[in-house]
């Protein structure tokens, strides 16, 4: 027994190889428990001085890229150290095997599951503005498509197809081990549930990300439970590293331009079309109609009207061009990282400023992030993350508003159809325009309510959102024993959103006292969640050939959501833009929900001889949506892998580095959106009252049988690494069956007293393959060449649906509709319509023909029967009308003639990329493609129907005009006929191949950079969506799939993704 004795130790640290002095080396005194007692770092000359508390404690000397050394003091006061460099920790591929997956405990190399990983290091030369941009097409069966090209619009993400009809389909996003769900539950209101407009936004700057993993099969997602039923996108952000401070600054500037729009008729062309439409309607010359004035460029027709009216109606306006602009994005990212033996830090700040390609759209974003890792001892470690994001978003008034988006009244639709001879700005008698927009209350096209001036509307209407997202994470990890780790995390997440909308009367042209003007809407929503994760990992030492890890995990979530909105109109002044004061109250809503869930996860993984890997896991999960009887679900998983190359018969084959066959099976629960599902709620209201008695009644029946939707997934795969890890091949096949499908609003007979209820009944299947090759052909210091291809497909089919869940939509006896019918044996998203055969060249051609094309005669045997439209309209087809296939040859076009027209599900999708590096230059090309999806080109339907007073596309110049014309474009006829029935005419093949990115970067050599006092200097330029090969005639074939089974895959002229050019610089110092 001897007393502790403090001492002062000095020394000099050099590189063992070069002998040069080393600065910023960590020197730490550690006690026998591995706990840090004191520490210092070496100065610029490589000297250090440390006061140790106990001279019996050893010193530990470490520096990144060098082997760690431990030395006893033994009474010495001067200890010089020579550090040896450690290739092991820097060699790129040797580290691969030791890499830990983002779940925190599985080695990447030993995974038996279907997981794909992107290391941002590999993406370094490929700068992108967002995570979504980066991911699209790079991962098998991860289908990312944009909901709209507007800033902040978010994206639609599907992993391995659509697996549910009414619950959420989007994958779980996990950031640093904690679920991230920015969506506020809009489904509280059971009436209008539409997730379509709320895309996922991944709130992390690409600069902050270290790795992204996509977990696809049940076995890999098991730990996440039901939230992960549709896969997981796991993002790990950069953390501090042991080094002196590294500063990094990145600047990106992007210019974006929209793809070409459908060319529309100009003013005179529009005038001719309308005149003809009118003539065909009632054989009257339109010029005798008063409305004719509005399309006449002849001042004489305007006799008797004020001169300025003529001036306002005789312009040449391209409305789509008027609301479109070149967009700019600027991004600044700055970070500091570093740390010593005990603590490491990473702090970053990002600023993002984007304008949209539609006028008055934009997004400003500020990201702050800091992470701190503190090792109290080798046994006890703390981590903390703090993240804050502010969004300041502004969009046009119509966006995310059902009353516009589902009625064809969104800015872009209006821009397509508005009369091209109207003036944008008000013109006086001298044809001079002042600052005011020209917003007539009524035109030939109808009232300004549905045909407003889109420039005025977009510019003056306000739709602002201020979002604050904050997250704080606290983690403690305690290595109780060498084999036993306890890991606990608590996270608080807050999403706060305020939306302010205002529509001044000048934006739409109505009087200020109209109920649709001076409309002010405010919405506050707040969501706060607390997540806890507690893990115990036990990995006993069982000798060299056995690896066993047992994990137990308990997780909880509590989420509170609050919502308040109010809407008023008819404010006395356009300057009063808040819903306050003595105005007309249009609506007021407020609600509050609470959700809780709890999960217990146990998992055992065992590896024998580094050859055979087995995993067995179970998640036991419950949440507050279900009643106590059906609340808990048990979801088992198993997986196994066989590393064949370790077997004797392959030992001699040296080109194989790793060859593994994988298989997994498992179940995951999925619970639907909405809270309190099992409660029988009652409603009260004046609308159900009688006399002076206030009515109260149940909203529906109590749902005692509601239970978890179960997704049963089988996965088989193969992993191959060879040729010194330069060649990677991955293959996966999966079959995913959704059991007890949750069916919202299943019909019950009216005799029960209610129209519908929600039930679990039915089965849905997704099946598919994923294939990836990554081959680095040449790998030399100055020259590298790499190719990579991934291909995937997914086939979706409904296996079983009960009779009382019949999804049939669309009245096929009316123009413009398609029929949806979801039936067993057919994929979801399929739709039906008529087969379009062109145009009847004259009246005599519009007759009934039998299967052989011979005319069918009526009773008198002389005059062939005329083709008629089914239903009660009694419409007889004429020359110039659209010709549809009369499938059953009954002389009548009706529901019996419908044919299957396709579905949106692509048959095959994927991407291929190529990377060439020569000295400092890196060239990256990346192509992305989808094959076989069918899209309804709604914009084309709207601009080719020649049925109303909407402007039409230039393609209508090929319309049928007189007897005998042979064309594919029917005649123009106002408000009559069936020329735009939902038919194959507007269904297009949406296959495309897109040069998604082409980028060039240059890394200045070290000596040049150092002259500028930089460690590293990189400049780059990237072009996005440079070219798209497609037959699709719309602006963009990348149409997001509908979020609900009753919606059609329509291209409804939302803002398309743009062609972009990005230039940037990255500096490290």
């Amino acid at each position: 027994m001897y007393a502790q004795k403090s001492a002062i130790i000095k020394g000099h640290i050099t590189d063992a190889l070069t002998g040069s002095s080393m600065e910023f080396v960590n020197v730490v005194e550690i006690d026998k428990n591995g706990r840090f007692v004191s520490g210092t770092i070496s100065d610029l000359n490589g000297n250090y001085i440390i006061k140790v508390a106990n001279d019996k404690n050893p010193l530990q000397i470490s520096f990144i890229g060098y082997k760690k050394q431990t030395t006893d003091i033994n009474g010495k006061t001067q200890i010089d150290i020579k550090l040896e460099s450690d290739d092991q920790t820097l060699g790129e591929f040797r580290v691969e095997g030791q890499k830990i997956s983002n779940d925190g405990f599985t080695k990447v190399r030993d995974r038996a599951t279907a997981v794909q990983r992107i290391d941002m290091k590999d993406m370094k030369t490929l700068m992108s503005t967002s995570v979504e941009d980066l991911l699209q097409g790079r991962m098998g069966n991860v289908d990312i498509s944009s909901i709209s090209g507007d800033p902040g619009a978010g994206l639609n993400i599907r992993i391995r197809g659509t697996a549910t009809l009414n619950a959420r389909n989007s994958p779980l996003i996990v950031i640093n081990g904690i679920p991230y769900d920015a969506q506020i539950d809009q489904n509280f209101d059971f009436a209008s549930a539409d997730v379509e407009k709320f895309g996922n936004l991944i709130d992390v700057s690409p600069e902050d990300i270290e790795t992204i993993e996509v977990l696809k099969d049940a076995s890999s997602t098991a730990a996440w439970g039901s939230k992960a039923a549709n896969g997981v996108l796991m993002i790990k952000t950069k953390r501090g590293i042991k080094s002196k401070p590294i500063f990094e600054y990145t600047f990106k500037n992007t210019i974006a331009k929209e793809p070409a729009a459908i060319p529309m008729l100009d003013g005179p062309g529009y005038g001719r079309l309308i005149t003809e439409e009118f003539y065909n309607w009632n054989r009257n010359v339109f010029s005798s109609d008063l409305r004719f004035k509005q399309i006449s460029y002849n001042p004489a027709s305007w006799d008797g009207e004020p001169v300025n009216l003529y001036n306002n109606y005789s312009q040449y306006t391209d409305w789509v061009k008027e609301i479109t602009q070149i967009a700019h994005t600027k991004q600044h990212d700055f970070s500091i990282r570093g740390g010593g033996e005990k603590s490491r830090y990473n702090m970053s700040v990002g600023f993002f400023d984007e304008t949209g390609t539609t006028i008055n759209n934009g997004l400003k974003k500020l990201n702050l992030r800091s992470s701190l890792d503190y090792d109290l001892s080798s046994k006890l470690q703390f981590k903390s993350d703090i993240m804050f994001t502010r969004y300041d978003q502004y969009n046009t008034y119509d966006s995310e508003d059902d009353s516009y988006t589902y009625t064809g009244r969104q800015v872009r639709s209006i821009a397509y159809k508005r009369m091209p001879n109207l003036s944008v700005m008000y013109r006086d008698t001298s044809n001079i325009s002042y600052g005011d927009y020209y917003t007539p209350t009524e035109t030939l096209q109808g009232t300004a309510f549905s045909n407003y001036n889109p420039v005025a509307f977009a510019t003056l209407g306000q739709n602002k959102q201020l979002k604050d997202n904050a997250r704080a994470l606290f983690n403690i990890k305690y290595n109780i024993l060498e084999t036993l780790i306890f890991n606990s995390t608590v996270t608080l997440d807050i999403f706060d959103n305020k939306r302010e909308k205002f529509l001044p009367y000048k934006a739409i042209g109505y009087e200020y006292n109209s109920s649709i003007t001076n409309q002010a809407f405010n919405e506050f929503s707040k969501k706060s969640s607390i997540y806890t994760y507690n893990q115990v990992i036990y990995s006993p030492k069982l000798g060299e050939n056995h690896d066993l890890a047992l994990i137990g995990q308990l997780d909880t979530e509590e989420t509170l959501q609050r919502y308040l909105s109010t809407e008023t109109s008819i404010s006395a002044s356009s300057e009063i833009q808040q819903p306050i004061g003595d105005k007309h109250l249009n609506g007021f809503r407020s609600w509050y929900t609470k959700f809780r869930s709890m999960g217990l996860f146990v998992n055992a993984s065992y590896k024998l001889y580094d050859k055979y890997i087995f995993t067995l896991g179970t998640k036991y999960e419950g949440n507050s949506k279900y009643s106590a009887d059906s609340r808990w679900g048990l979801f088992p998983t198993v997986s196994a892998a066989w590393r064949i190359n370790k077997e004797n018969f392959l030992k001699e084959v040296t080109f194989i580095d790793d060859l593994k066959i994988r298989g997994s099976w498992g179940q995951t629960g999925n619970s639907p959106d909405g809270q309190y599902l099992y409660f029988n709620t009652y409603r009260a209201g004046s609308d159900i009252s009688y006399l002076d008695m206030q009515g109260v009644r149940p909203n529906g029946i109590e749902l005692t049988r509601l239970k978890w939707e179960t997704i049963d997934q089988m996965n088989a795969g193969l992993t191959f690494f060879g040729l010194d890890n330069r060649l990677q091949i991955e293959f996966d096949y999966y079959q995913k069956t959704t059991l007890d499908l949750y069916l919202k609003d299943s019909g019950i007979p009216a005799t029960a007293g209610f129209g519908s209820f929600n039930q679990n009944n039915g089965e849905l299947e997704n099946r598919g393959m994923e294939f990836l090759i990554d081959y680095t052909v040449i790998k030399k210091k100055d020259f590298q060449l790499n190719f990579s291809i991934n291909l995937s497909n997914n086939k979706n089919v409904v296996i079983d649906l009960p009779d009382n869940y019949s999804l049939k939509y669309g009245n096929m006896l009316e123009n413009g509709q398609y029929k949806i019918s979801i039936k067993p044996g057919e994929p979801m998203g399929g739709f039906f319509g008529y087969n379009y055969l062109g145009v009847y060249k004259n009246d005599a051609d519009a007759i009934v023909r039998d299967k052989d094309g011979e005319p069918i005669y009526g009773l008198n045997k002389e005059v062939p029967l005329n083709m008629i439209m089914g239903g009660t309209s009694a419409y007889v087809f004429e020359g110039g009308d659209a010709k549809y296939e009369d499938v059953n040859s009954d002389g009548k076009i009706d529901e019996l003639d419908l044919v299957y027209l396709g579905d949106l599900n692509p048959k095959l999708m994927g991407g291929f990329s190529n990377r060439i590096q020569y000295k400092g230059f890196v060239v990256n090309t990346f192509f992305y493609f989808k094959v076989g999806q069918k899209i309804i080109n709604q914009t084309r339907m709207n601009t080719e129907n020649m049925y109303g007073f909407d402007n039409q596309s230039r393609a209508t110049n090929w319309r049928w005009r007189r007897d005998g014309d042979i064309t594919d474009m029917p005649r123009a006829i106002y408000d009559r006929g069936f020329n735009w029935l939902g038919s194959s005419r507007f269904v297009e093949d949406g296959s495309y191949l897109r040069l998604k990115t082409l980028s060039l970067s240059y890394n200045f050599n070290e000596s040049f950079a150092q002259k500028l006092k930089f460690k590293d200097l990189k400049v780059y330029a990237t072009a996005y969506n440079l070219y798209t090969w497609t037959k699709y005639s719309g602006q963009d074939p990348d149409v997001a799939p509908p979020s609900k089974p009753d919606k059609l895959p329509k291209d409804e002229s939302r803002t398309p993704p743009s062609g972009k050019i990005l230039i940037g610089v990255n500096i490290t110092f």
Partner: protein
Amino acid sequence: MVKYRILNPIFFAIILMALALSSCKDWLSIAPENNLIKEKFWTKTEDVDGALAATYDAFRNGAVGSLAWGEIRADLVVFPAGQSNYNRIAASDINSSNDAINWGSYYETINLANTLMFYDKEVFEKDKTFTLEMKNGVDAEALFLRSLSYFYLVRVWKDVPLVLNPSISDTSALFLPKVSEKEVIGQIIKDLLVAKDLAYTTEFRNDPQHPAYFNGRANKYSIMSLLADVYLWDQQYQKCIDYCDSVSNSGLFSLESTETWFNIYNPGNSPKESIFEIQYDDNLDGQENPFYNDILFAKPGLTFGKIVTSLFDKEDLRLFGGDFKYLGITIDSPVGRSSNQRDGHFIYYRYADILLMKAEAFTELGNFVLANEMVRVTINRAGLNHGEIVVKEDLRKAILDERGREFLLEGKRWFDLLRAAKRNNFEKKQIIIDMILAGADIQRQAVLRTKVFDTMSYYLPIPERDLIYNPFLLQNTFYNR
């Protein structure tokens, strides 16, 4: 030297998990805070009142339908051209996918009534202010609304599912087959016999606080009127007369005079004549009569059938009624209700009906003297004279015509005709056949001529939606072909 003392984490974790799992049953049970849930309802008197109001409201939602089923296939009224679904039915172009063919409101009423009768027992246990008398009154009203709904159902659809238990949860019997008209009528009679003894009598008469409760809510007299109507339909004529007499003998009811006849419709709730009216009030949110917007204010509007000119004497005061009954024009002030006075009630029973039901029953029992006496009262009130009729068939026809005049646009005509036709196994189905053929155009007549002999065609098809959702339901045989 700082000493770290940390609770053994394993121990800590085990305790935590144990605690969590043992308490999670409660931790995961969260009730919605901004919604009324069943667990918190059905405890107080006002809960019962609220549920009763909602039951009346549900029945009221079917009132336009009740009017339509009583008139649309008959000959007095032609609905506006805009009501194409009704017009197709009027032209006997009927199929189950016609959206107007909908029995939802009746079954909604039935379910709410069933629910009310199921849970008011619980309230009776919990809330002592909810007396037995109040409970009986509520049960009687629920039974009345349920019976009236079923009476419409059997007259429009004939055989229908008989739902006597509430649809409370997804384990309730939600998919029920049809039962025969006879069984439904039997149930209605059984229920009404119980209800008439439970019901309020004159408690609400002249109640200044609730002036409309006596006419707007069911009481002993409305129940007995309905009972008489059901017995008449079921050819139990003496019982019909008995209950008509019970209503008469109460001394509460009489006919409005010729001068005050219009008061029946404007303002309505005639203190003399009214027995049961479904109430509307434009001043109350959601309680305006939809009949105005849908039918009366439509352009082109409602018109009368050809038969009206021959049916009415020019002097008949009631010809002036028609749709104007709802608009409320009186002879003295030819100004109708304005577009925001959509509060004409829908009259189900008034005293004139009691008299004419009795006339019909007496005719069938051979007591022509008393039958003539009854008919004479309403004819005289209209300002006309009635000559004694002694031939049974003539008397039947006279009563049918008089009912047509008296109840023009009160939703009775089709049921009167059908009741006359179906008497003694459709002895007189020619009544319906003639009317249907007269209403169709020449082309359509050719098609219909072969079909009208099937008496099942006088009933509507079961709505398509119910057929799809309910595998136990079989379509009316006429529409199955």
